[in-house]
């Protein structure tokens, strides 16, 4: 069985290698190969899962030691895998959702000339992500960590001819690199403290170390988590990352990669439990991001950006939960999984909508699409109900549990956190309802009003599809261009795209309930992430009631604002808060002011300095010597007599010398 673990990673890696090096001859079948390999690793994951179920809680953890990676004196870095319940959960999520999204992409990227490379990158991502969750030590985890960063870089910038895409990719990688530096430093600290960075030894010895060290490690790990999971203050890249193709947003920036931070914190639970200060910081970060994302999400008109903000906020929930310690880890992971389902579903839905709308992303130009793309509408709607925590659906269970855990953090802290999570729930309901209404209900704002373009004849759908195809093939957001020229003709996406959406919809409906069946999920994870029952200050039903209440409140508000009265196509100026939220609460302005401009000035001045001072000193010395020799050269005037003088003087000096020698 152990040997299968390696194959789990190897399969997509092989796919990536073949697809990327294979060349054009693979263009025809490449995408199917990629999908097949993803499916293979999912099958392997399933086999391992059932095998794991077959064994009792004690010996469920599997280890596979492949080879010693960097053997240096007093330093052991092995390529070794560790498959326990936690990583098993992730393996299933990654491979499962991954396979579905591969399938989806077959349709979505159909018209893209570079589809083969796209699938190569997707496989590369799967491999890296699996490496991340299967690693047995922090160094190998770091490899996967940067690996997914690379894949994300490649996929965000997949349409490289778009400067915005290229810039977004660079931004994502850089911000992540900051987090990676944190992870690296954490690893150094572990090495100097424990002399190793294998999970087993480190976590076992964690409580033995000084709290200061552990706090440092915890904060550094948190920095890494912030980078990868787009938590404040390293959140700014996620919004731009939506430049990538929608399947990428669904897989990497919703379901899997961005949750790696939660995995890291949960995995390092032992360290955080021994460092309460670090935990506090984690909780604060989670709470802040939760609200930050929610607020931003309320103002975005770009459907993908709105969903991205919601992702940020949902991960805030998870981080918060993970920061609560043993009472929260399991819930964090649970919410992570359910969120993986419904957020992926939502993104695929959004992709499907864009697919039908000439890649238009502005929700204000949607409206009333439920009649034109019913399947998308239903699946999207189910995902929507799940995320706002409609009773009975996945989101309800996972989120509700986190809220309870937040309340039971104890004392004022508990009340604050609980309040934050409740507020978050309300906001979630609000902005998701807004998305829903703007997209699928209301009047069809994408139709050209007679005033806008008088007496324009209808073009038949075929032409519309034809117009849509090159737009996406070349990847430009042809929405504006095409929208102005030819009126979009929304149509349902092909089967290959709707199928994954349906599957994910099922997940988002039933997963939560399934997990919560007799706390199955919690018990499943308990051996890895210890579990304590939360004891909220209020009775559970009250909290649940409150959750549902605030959810309904949010929905109601959104309906009042967007459901009842018509929505203007061009966004109104809006309140100060709205405008701030549209600008992502000035995150980029802050970064620019704080780092970018300063850095640019620094480099410019340094370049100047290097040229004038450092190099100037060198050239100055050279010039000085040149001048001196030029002066000396004048002595050699070419006149025999002046040479004779020097000879004569030399003779005199010699005589003097001899006399002196005789004297002494």
């Amino acid at each position, binding site marked *: 069985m152990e040997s299968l673990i390696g194959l789990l990673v190897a399969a997509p890696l092989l796919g990536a290698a073949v697809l990327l090096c294979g060349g054009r001859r693979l263009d025809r079948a490449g995408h199917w190969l990629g999908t097949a390999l993803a499916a293979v690793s999912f099958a392997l994951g399933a086999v391992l899962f059932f095998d794991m179920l077959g064994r009792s809680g004690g010996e469920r953890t599997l280890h596979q030691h492949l080879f010693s990676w960097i053997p240096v004196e007093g330093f052991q870095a092995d390529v070794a895998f560790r498959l326990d319940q936690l990583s098993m959960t992730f393996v299933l999520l990654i491979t499962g959702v991954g396979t579905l999204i591969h399938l989806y992409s077959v349709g979505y990227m159909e018209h893209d000339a570079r589809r083969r490379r796209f699938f190569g990158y997707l496989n590369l991502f799967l491999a890296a992500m699996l490496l991340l969750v299967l690693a047995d030590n922090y160094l190998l985890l770091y490899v996967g960590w940067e690996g997914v960063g690379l894949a994300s870089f490649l996929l965000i910038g997949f349409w490289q001819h778009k400067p915005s895409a290229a810039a977004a990719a660079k931004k994502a990688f850089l911000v992540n690199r900051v987090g990676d530096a944190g992870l690296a430093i954490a690893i150094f600290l572990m090495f100097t403290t424990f002399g190793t960075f294998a999970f087993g030894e480190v976590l076992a010895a964690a409580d033995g170390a000084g709290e200061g060290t552990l706090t440092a490690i915890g904060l550094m790990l948190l920095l890494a988590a912030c980078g990868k999971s787009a938590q404040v203050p390293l959140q700014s890249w996620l919004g731009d990352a939506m430049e990538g193709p929608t399947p990428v947003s669904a897989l990497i920036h919703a379901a899997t990669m961005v949750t790696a931070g939660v995995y890291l914190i949960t995995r390092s639970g032992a360290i955080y439990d021994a460092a309460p200060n670090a935990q506090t910081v984690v909780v604060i970060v989670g709470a802040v991001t939760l609200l930050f994302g929610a607020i931003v999400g309320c103002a975005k008109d770009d459907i993908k950006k709105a969903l991205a903000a919601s992702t940020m906020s949902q991960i805030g929930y998870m981080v918060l939960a993970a920061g609560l310690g043993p009472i929260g880890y399991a819930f964090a992971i649970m919410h992570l999984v359910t969120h993986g389902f419904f957020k992926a579903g939502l993104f695929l839905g959004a992709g499907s909508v864009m697919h039908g709308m000439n890649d238009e992303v502005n929700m204000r130009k949607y409206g009333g699409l439920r009649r034109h793309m019913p399947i998308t509408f239903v699946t999207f709607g189910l995902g929507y109900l799940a995320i706002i925590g409609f009773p009975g659906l996945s989101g309800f269970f996972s989120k509700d549990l986190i809220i309870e855990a937040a309340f039971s953090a104890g004392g004022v802290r508990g009340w604050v956190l609980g309040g934050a999570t409740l507020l978050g729930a309300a906001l979630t309901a609000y902005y998701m309802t807004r998305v829903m209404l703007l997209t699928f209900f209301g009047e069809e704002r994408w139709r050209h009003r007679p005033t806008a373009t008088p007496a324009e004849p209808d073009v038949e759908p075929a032409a519309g599809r034809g117009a849509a195809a090159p737009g996406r093939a070349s990847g430009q957001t042809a929405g504006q261009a095409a929208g102005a020229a030819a009126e979009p003709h929304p149509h349902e996406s092909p089967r290959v795209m709707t199928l994954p959406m349906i599957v994910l919809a099922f997940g988002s409906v039933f997963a939560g309930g399934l997990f919560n069946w007799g706390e199955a999920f919690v018990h499943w994870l308990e051996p890895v992430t210890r579990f304590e029952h939360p004891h909220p200050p209020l009775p559970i039903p009250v909290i649940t009631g409150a959750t549902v209440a605030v959810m309904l409140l949010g929905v109601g508000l959104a309906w009042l604002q967007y459901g009842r009265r018509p929505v203007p196509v061009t966004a109104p100026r809006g309140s100060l808060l709205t405008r701030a939220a549209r600008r992502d609460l000035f995150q980029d302005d802050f970064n620019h002011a704080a780092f970018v401009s300063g850095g640019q000035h620094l480099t410019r001045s340094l370049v100047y300095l290097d040229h004038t001072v450092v190099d100037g000193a060198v050239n100055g010395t050279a010039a000085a010597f040149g001048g001196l020799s030029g002066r000396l050269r004048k002595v*050699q005037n*070419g006149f*025999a*007599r002046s040479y004779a003088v020097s000879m004569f003087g030399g003779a005199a000096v010699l005589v003097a010398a001899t006399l002196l020698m005789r004297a002494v």
Partner: protein
Amino acid sequence: MNPANYLYLAALLFTIGAFGVLIRRNAIVVFMCIELMLNAANLTLVAFSRMHGNLDGQIMAFFVMVVAAAEVVVGLAIIVMLYRSRHSASVDDASLMKL
């Protein structure tokens, strides 16, 4: 009388000759000054040979004279050529020792 006197005289003549070599521009005069220096040297040789009472000194002086004669012959020939080529016997005109 002290033999040193001859040596003092020789030193004086030698110095004067050297000075002349340095300040005169006419190649022929320069040559004369060189001859003067040689003669001063000869005087010392002779004085020493008398002082030590053997003939080697004089023989040295003799050789000096011979060599000086040869040198004068060649040197003057060169001067003549120089004069032919550049119509002047000034050593400063031949300032070609500079790159």
